[in-house]
């Protein structure tokens, strides 16, 4: 099960990178980066998972005494929470820049933006 999620995460990373490198449209590239971002989050979550254990929340099912034996690692989950929020911020910034680029050139085709080309 963990291996399936890990494989899916790695596939999403590769797909996202492929899309970002192949597509010419800036909006497509932004979507591809979001896909790769999701893949990284999946891999991190899968690495923190341990078979047969439950979420790191103490309630009637998991008492304080047996928490060490029953819960999965909370650190990757905290990391992914941070990563998701930062990912949203990065996507919003990319969309704003794409908007401005469209305003200046009237196109979103990356090959038309040649100022920094060498």
């Amino acid at each position: 099960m963990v291996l399936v999620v890990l494989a899916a995460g790695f596939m999403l990373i590769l797909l996202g990178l492929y899309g970002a490198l192949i597509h010419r449209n800036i909006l497509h590239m932004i979507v591809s980066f979001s896909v790769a971002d999701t893949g990284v989050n999946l891999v991190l979550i899968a690495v923190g998972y341990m078979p047969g254990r439950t979420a790191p929340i103490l309630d009637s099912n998991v008492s304080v005494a047996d928490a060490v034996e029953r819960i999965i690692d909370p650190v990757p989950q905290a990391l992914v929470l941070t990563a998701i929020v930062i990912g949203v911020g990065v996507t919003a910034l990319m969309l704003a820049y794409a908007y401005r680029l469209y305003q200046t050139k009237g196109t979103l085709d990356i090959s038309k933006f040649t100022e920094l080309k060498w």
Partner: protein
Amino acid sequence: MTKRIFVFGMLIGLGAIFIDLLLSYTPDSALNQTARYYAERTATDLGAANIVAAVIVTYRGLDTLGEVTVLFLTAAILVMVLYRDHGIGINKIPNRFLPPTGEMLGTGSRLLVPLILLMGVYLFANGHLTPGGGFQGGAIIASAVLLLLLTNPNQTFNLQLFSLTESISGIGFVVIGVLGMFFAGGFLDNRIFPIGQLGELFSAGAIPVIYTLIGLKVGAEFSSILVHLSEEKEES
């Protein structure tokens, strides 16, 4: 064509690394040292039932402060990038013709927006007990604003209220952190308030307070990002 070959070569190389990682991966059978410390000490030291919330708000609270700062910078840079003299502003809405909102969407959004807001508040107020917390609750509050924008794209929002909420919650977060240095163990220590009974709503010291502030701040930031992205005047 050469570019495609390079891209495929790079992806195949990366894929080989990933396959190697995948085949050599064995899940841990016991918690590592850090996770074990969190699992053993969170309930007794901090009184939080949700260990992830304890890690985010107290153990690694400084990182969360940095994360909130990154979000604030995102919102600020977004306004800076999108700003034009005649562009955004409270009284300057785009004057485009829109067909009237459908009955279903209008009534549905009036029914759903208060419930969505309540759901967001519930999530960040119970962040120390159940899955959820400030960031998730804030994102849900912003989704209520998104629903309002979808219902009526010409809707005006009080952007000053958003920035006021954001500033007050940000300052409150830092002030609580500094209070921890004087009344408890250190910066962002949650034990400035009584820890209380594990599993109660009013427990875990400052964690619910900080999560509420984070929720308000994230909600205001995401809402202002959404409003700014939608309030741009159409190119005429």
